């Protein structure tokens, strides 16, 4: 198990200003790829496979609304993958997995909460970079 690292959202602004490089280093080391895989496979938690296909069980229950996750780590850099999870293209249907603001009519049980925690996003990114094209 990797050491639980502090991720960006949990840092006080003062620390953030002074320590971006450190944070980048920490978050890069922080992701647990096997947990990331479990998060993606858990459709109730992450909903990834409702839209994406990918190398997971039950392909007949996966969506085709978005690019396959297979080979994602070859197509995109780690930074670009993280960017898509946190601040996706507003013209796409991809939700932000980190946002708690700028949303409309969020259900009571979800209000104020992001889809995934910063640690979970780190884990997902750590897994996605391992998905290399054959």
């Amino acid at each position: 198990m990797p050491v639980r690292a502090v991720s960006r959202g949990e840092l006080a602004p003062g620390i953030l200003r002074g320590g971006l490089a450190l944070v980048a280093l920490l978050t890069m080391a922080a992701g647990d790829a096997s947990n990331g895989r479990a998060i993606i496979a858990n459709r109730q938690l992450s909903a990834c496979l409702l839209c994406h296909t990918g190398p997971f069980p039950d392909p007949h229950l996966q969506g085709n609304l978005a690019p396959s996750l297979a080979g994602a780590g070859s197509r995109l850099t780690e930074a670009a993958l993280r960017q898509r999870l946190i601040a996706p293209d507003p013209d796409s249907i991809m939700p932000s997995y980190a946002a708690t603001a700028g949303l409309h009519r969020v259900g009571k049980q979800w209000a104020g909460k992001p889809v995934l925690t910063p640690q979970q996003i780190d884990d997902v990114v750590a897994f996605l970079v391992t998905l290399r094209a054959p």
Partner: protein
Amino acid sequence: MKRLLPLLLLCSIAAGPPVDLRSGYDDASAETRAMQDDDGGNPGFLWVREGEAQWSQPAGPLGKSCASCHGDATVSMRGVAARYPLIDKATNRPMTLDRRIGECRTDRQQAEALPPESDAALGLAAYVGLQSRGMPLNVDADNPFVAAGRRLFETRMGQLNLSCAQCHDDRAGMKLAGAVIPQGHPNGYPEYRLEWQAMGSLNRRLRNCMVGVRAEPFPPDSPEMAALALYLAVRAKGLKVETPAVRP
């Protein structure tokens, strides 16, 4: 051409309301369609028969039944479901058929309200809806609530930040979690859903979708639900009423 291409790609996704209308029936499996086609095997008819019995059953202190005022439903209710929702003259607001039936029950019969999604409420709505089966939806679209409904349909909402339109206009026919996304038409309600193993109203379906994107559903009798129902009916103009439809 190079500069046009991204624009063309964008247009192919941001499609707007469907032009070539497909009922959910067209996207259902052969087994599901066969179940709907056979009145004897269509589970929705269990509710229809209950509604038929209720039609002439007195309720409330006045001892009135639906039939006391409306007579033979196969005559008086013919075509009614194809015209709803309509703009209610008394309130100048969209009125759904479910709401109208509910009002008749509490105001005209002065009987106890039928709880939403109860077998009794669904049965009456299904029996009334059946009298318009095969008739094209033809709702009056000449009012500002249609545009209001469309705005709601196209508003991204919930933690997953999706609009109705992003799936049911722009991506109908594609697959969400392995299931074909239908165009999302209201022409079969109340309908029997295999997923529910029960009959349900359009309200229930809209609520499911909103919960699915992790949004706070509009309350059943809210102006928003009525505007959405109205827009959906206008958007589906010409599709035939299939009540009681069977859907996955």
